[in-house]
């Protein structure tokens, strides 16, 4: 028999005893909401009036022509309110929090995308909000910090460990074990202790439900392949769920290859030989860790993929051969981004661009009467500081220098 919260041998809920009751309540509320059809209706209604669900499926005519193979479709999660699929999860959990009667939410954030989404949800639902963010990320992602603060959230820079996403998660847990009576921890991806993977996957399944319907409508048959980038795995799980039972649809998760697998400066858990089974941050999965079980530093140009673990659900699907994994390097990502912007007038987030890399590598080898879908998890204009920097744009640098001087004079 499979234990609840397990996907094959992965998952579980490795939580401190103090959270036992909190998780009992959370599991119960989640189960009630899943059983209650009106909850999902309320969720869909919220996402269609507050965000713009269903998000479109865009036919990328130029890219399809460019590669001369499969017809390329792009699922446009970038058009969500706050600019990424993160909104789906966050608004869903917001509804749960309302049902539980809690008044405060906390969250970790890496790039800041999930932090902005959570702060947004908190503003809308009238919750107090604290966001934990690695100090290094606070430095790198100031625009998102600015918006979180404007949205009324308190942003706490995390100075422990590698000062990035995983440390922010730890810090959020530390807050939670002190304040669980009033507070819900809005986990940002399909990771963490059960029921988070199940819950986040459920809310994100809206992507796949829509995508399947849309591709049937626009293309008349199922896609040959579906590509999604994988940080924690929430956007990937979101779209994959629409096609899991369609065995003929190949599902491809693309991880951060960083500076190349060989350099060890990457965040490829399933697409590299560098990860091993472990238990951390409340769940069991493949982690990038050393032989003692200490977690490694990871690297990616995309902050949202720069993480040691990966969804236990995806690890299971990988182990069972249902999802294929690949890695895209930073350099490949910048090239795919450039091509997509120029060909389609669409700016994927750096995270999302990882999925484009592999779709582009494979599109040409498929026949023209097949379709592929790329999940564009977010929009890239939020990443201007990173993207302009990565493209080494001289006018951008001059602009920033000039602004810096103005402010220095203040």
């Amino acid at each position, binding site marked *: 028999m499979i234990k609840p919260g397990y996907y094959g041998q992965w998952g579980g809920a490795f939580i401190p005893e103090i959270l036992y009751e909190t998780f009992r309540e959370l599991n119960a509320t989640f189960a009630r909401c899943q059983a209650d059809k009106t909850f999902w209706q309320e969720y869909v209604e919220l996402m269609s009036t507050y965000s713009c669900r269903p998000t479109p499926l865009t036919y990328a005519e130029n890219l399809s022509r460019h590669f001369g193979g499969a017809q390329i479709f792009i699922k446009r999660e970038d058009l969500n309110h706050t600019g990424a699929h993160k909104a789906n999860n966050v608004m869903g959990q917001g509804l749960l929090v309302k049902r539980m009667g809690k008044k405060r939410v906390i969250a970790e954030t890496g790039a800041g995308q999930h932090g902005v989404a959570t702060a947004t949800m908190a503003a809308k639902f009238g919750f107090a909000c604290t966001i934990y963010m690695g100090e290094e990320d606070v430095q790198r992602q100031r625009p998102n910090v600015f918006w979180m603060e404007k949205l009324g959230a308190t942003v706490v820079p995390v100075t422990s460990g590698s000062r990035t996403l995983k440390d922010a998660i730890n810090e959020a847990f530390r807050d939670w074990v002190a304040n669980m009576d009033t507070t819900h921890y809005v986990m940002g991806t399909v990771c963490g202790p059960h029921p988070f993977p199940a819950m986040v996957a459920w809310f994100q399944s809206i992507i796949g439900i829509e995508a399947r319907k849309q591709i049937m409508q626009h293309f008349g048959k199922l896609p040959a392949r579906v590509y999604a980038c994988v940080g924690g795995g929430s956007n990937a799980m979101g779209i994959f769920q629409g096609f899991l039972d369609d065995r003929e649809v190949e599902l491809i998760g693309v991880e951060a290859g960083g500076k190349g697998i060989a350099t060890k400066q990457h965040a490829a858990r399933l697409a590299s030989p560098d990860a091993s089974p472990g*238990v951390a941050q409340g769940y069991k999965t493949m982690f990038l860790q050393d032989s003692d079980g200490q977690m490694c530093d990871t690297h990616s140009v995309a902050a949202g993929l720069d993480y040691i673990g990966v969804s236990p659900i995806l690890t299971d699907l990988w182990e069972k051969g249902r999802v294929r994994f690949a890695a895209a390097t930073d350099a490949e990502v910048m090239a795919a981004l450039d091509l997509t912007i120029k060909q389609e007038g669409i700016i994927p987030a750096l995270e999302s661009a990882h999925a484009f890399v592999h779709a582009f590598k494979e599109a040409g080898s498929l026949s023209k009467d097949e379709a592929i879908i790329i999940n564009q998890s977010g929009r890239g204009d939020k990443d201007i500081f990173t993207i302009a920097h990565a493209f080494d744009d001289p006018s951008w640098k001059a602009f920033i220098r000039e602004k810096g001087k103005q402010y220095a004079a203040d």
Partner: protein
Amino acid sequence: MQLTETLRARRAEKDILLMTHLVLGYPSLAVNREVVRQMVDNGVDCIELQIPFSEPVADGPVILKANQEAISHGLKVRECLEFAAEMAATHKIPFLFMTYYNILFKYGVEKFFKKAKEIGIQGFIVPDLPPEEGEEYLNLAKKYGIAPVMIFAPTSTDMRMRELAGYGEGLVYCVARRGVTGAQTTFDAAFHDYLAHCRAATNLPLAVGFGIASKADVEVLKGKADMAVIGTATIRLVEGKGPEAVGPFIAGLR
């Protein structure tokens, strides 16, 4: 179970026992060695040796930093085991391992139990391993005769406490309050009520930790618990005044 008996025996002689804690490799194993000696010499009844982990979610800033510095200085799990072996061989009191589950998991859970048994460790405290996830762990604890210490929290219901008590051996670690290690605890009516519930749920010795830092704190626990756990306080002390301050501090607690 050896640990239970040892503690019960000591408890028969004292109105409260003392358990202390240290993070291995912080600031160094050499300092750890001196600190342990001072603790034992000053009558500590039991010592938790924390094997550092890079993601210590249940720990507050002081212990967190200690974990991370120890790792960043290159401390290996192997060295922790060697050091623990030396302590258990040198000192007559029980030593426990406190660490996070991944350390056991990555080492190989059975291999870890076997090794611990070999070197004379009497119990494990693993704060991120609830019994629901610990089937293998609990079986091995039985097999190797190592006490799997259970944790009670102020949020635990009576039913949950009884359930936990059923899994536990050696002692029950009662977390004094919500939050992580290192912050202050208020010993109010709710706290005493909580301890009464703990007491009612188990016959195992009750150790109370999180925020115990002074003679007064220890005093409060007398008659209500069997053991006071001093964690962050000694780490702060060593940081501020060096290992030689530990002896007098411990001596002054009871």
